[in-house]
């Protein structure tokens, strides 16, 4: 098991290397000359050169990359140009809000997807199945910021059932925290719910055709038991893959949702930093998003082993 994880990590290295090069180049080449930003009025060549030397910008590009990578390896993502806070601190400060949003969104998506997908598979061709199938295409077609806006309009502006945006930390007031997180989580999780439902449905249909389902029926297990106790575990194996990708993509979806609901998470930090031209912060968040996505893939493989005993990590 440990050797398997190590081997997988080793295999990730080339891709991880390319990812860092990509992020470095993109941000480095595009951010313009920071000396001009820092100097303001006094733009004498000497002053510019001095700043360049100070920031290491007079070194060849690969040396700059090496220095940057060296810092990165030590967990040093640099400092924000605007607030001078370290990037890791800035991200860590915002991370709890994003995680709460992401976890509730994921729960919402599974809570919708697994029962609906199962019902659609069991009652194939029924009205419920057609509705569910319509939802699988519809759910991924409506942008999550639009879902968010409609939810705000209906449930908070018109009916005053939920607060409009804002974040209350879970540790301060769990009830208020959940009340605040619900709408953004639904907005964020609906596309995932549609994808998960599609996978649950098709996978359940396939599993229900297997011989071992008939064995379970022959034992006297009821349909309900056959579906939920026997078939579901098999059916969920492929669903794990997409769910894993969704976990890795939490930051991605959060960018938009957090903007709609003024949710002080990592996603909103990314958008703010782009407009502030605070590229070290953007760089840090993009790296975080890419790496959590890659690690989610690894996690998927490990969960696979738990769900499907036929897979061994020898």
């Amino acid at each position, binding site marked *: 098991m440990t050797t398997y994880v190590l081997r997988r990590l080793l295999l990730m290295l080339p891709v991880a290397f390319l990812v860092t090069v990509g992020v470095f180049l993109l941000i480095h080449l595009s951010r313009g000359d920071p000396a001009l930003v820092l100097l303001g009025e006094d733009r004498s060549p000497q002053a510019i050169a001095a700043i360049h030397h100070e920031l290491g910008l007079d070194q060849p590009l690969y040396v700059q990359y090496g220095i940057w990578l060296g810092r990165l390896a030590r967990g040093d993502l640099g400092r924000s140009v605007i607030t001078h806070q370290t990037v890791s601190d800035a991200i860590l400060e915002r991370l709890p809000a994003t995680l709460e949003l992401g976890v509730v969104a994921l729960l919402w998506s599974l809570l919708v997807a697994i029962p609906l997908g199962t019902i659609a598979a069991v009652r194939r061709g029924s009205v419920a199945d057609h509705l569910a199938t319509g939802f699988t295409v519809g759910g991924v077609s409506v942008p999550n*910021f639009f879902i968010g806006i409609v939810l*705000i309009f209906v449930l908070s502006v018109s009916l005053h059932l939920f607060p409009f945006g804002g974040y209350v930390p879970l540790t301060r007031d769990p009830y208020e925290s959940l009340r605040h997180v619900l709408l953004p989580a639904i907005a964020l999780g609906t596309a995932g719910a549609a994808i998960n439902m599609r996978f649950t449905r098709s996978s359940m249909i396939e599993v229900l055709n297997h011989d071992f389902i008939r064995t379970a029926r022959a034992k006297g297990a009821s349909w309900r038991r056959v579906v939920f106790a026997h078939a579901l575990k098999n059916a969920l194996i492929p669903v794990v893959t997409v769910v894993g990708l969704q976990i890795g993509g*939490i930051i991605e979806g959060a960018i938009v949702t957090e903007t709609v609901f003024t949710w002080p998470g990592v996603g909103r930090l990314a958008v703010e930093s782009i407009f502030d031209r605070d590229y070290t912060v953007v760089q840090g968040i993009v790296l975080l998003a890419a790496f959590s996505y890659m690690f989610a893939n690894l996690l998927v493989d490990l969960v696979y082993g738990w769900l499907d005993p036929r897979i061994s990590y020898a």
Partner: protein
Amino acid sequence: MSNAPALVAAAEPTLRGRIDPVELLRRYPRVALSAGLVALLFLVALLAPIISPHDPLAVEPDNAYLKPFTSGHVLGTDELGRDLLSRIIWGARVSLPVAFVAVGVGLVAGGLIGLVSGYKGGLTDLLLMRLIDALLAFPALILAIGIVAGLGPSLTNAMIAIGIVGIPVYARLVRAQTLQLRQMEFVTATRSLGAKPLRLVLGHIVPNLLNPVLVQVSLSAGFAILAEATLSFLGLGAQVPTPDWGQMINAGARFLSNDPWLAIAPGLGISISVYSFNLLGDALRDALDPRLRS
């Protein structure tokens, strides 16, 4: 959470070989319905100058915040007195070309990478595929946002970014097809007869890829419209005063309590367009996938 069904679609094989379009529409009502919706969208975009009742950019401060169905403004007007319906209609003229250029970028660049990768093999293949892996290591929207952040916010840059995001799907699709073909005996045979190998491969790959690419382009177009709207909503794509749906939602969200239409109408525009393309892709896949035809 990734709104990218496109990445999922490529994994599923589709029937190769020619299919009569008329037959397809006749036998699969879902294909016909969604193709009709898509055609309607194109028509709206094409005829925008003719069918839109007002100039989408004409500012009339005296007519600001008109409710729907007042004095010739079917959907009312926005905070600057611009006609909402006209802006929605013109929005199609912004979204569709962006989406199709983006899909074109992904298709051409990805197709070339896949072709070279599959045809050359060896080290070239290894390096190119690692590059594709690196692109896939980013969640789709993060990659697009990262690129736009680097290039600077604009509609053109959003288009380029969405195109780059689409590269891996097509690269993998074309590479798999090329590899499969390279192993077939007739390729070696015709090669020994002096046929130009690349031309041969192209001549055989293109028809074989037609169906899967058709499905993929349709799904990618849906994703591209969605991504463009998202970037513009964040302020990273279309800039004011372009009548762009995502941009309009961003502006309209501030007036939700009194004039919800300003945000909801463009949202419907996006949703219907993306839905049409996704439905078309989905219906085509069902129709062209032999495994689903039991």
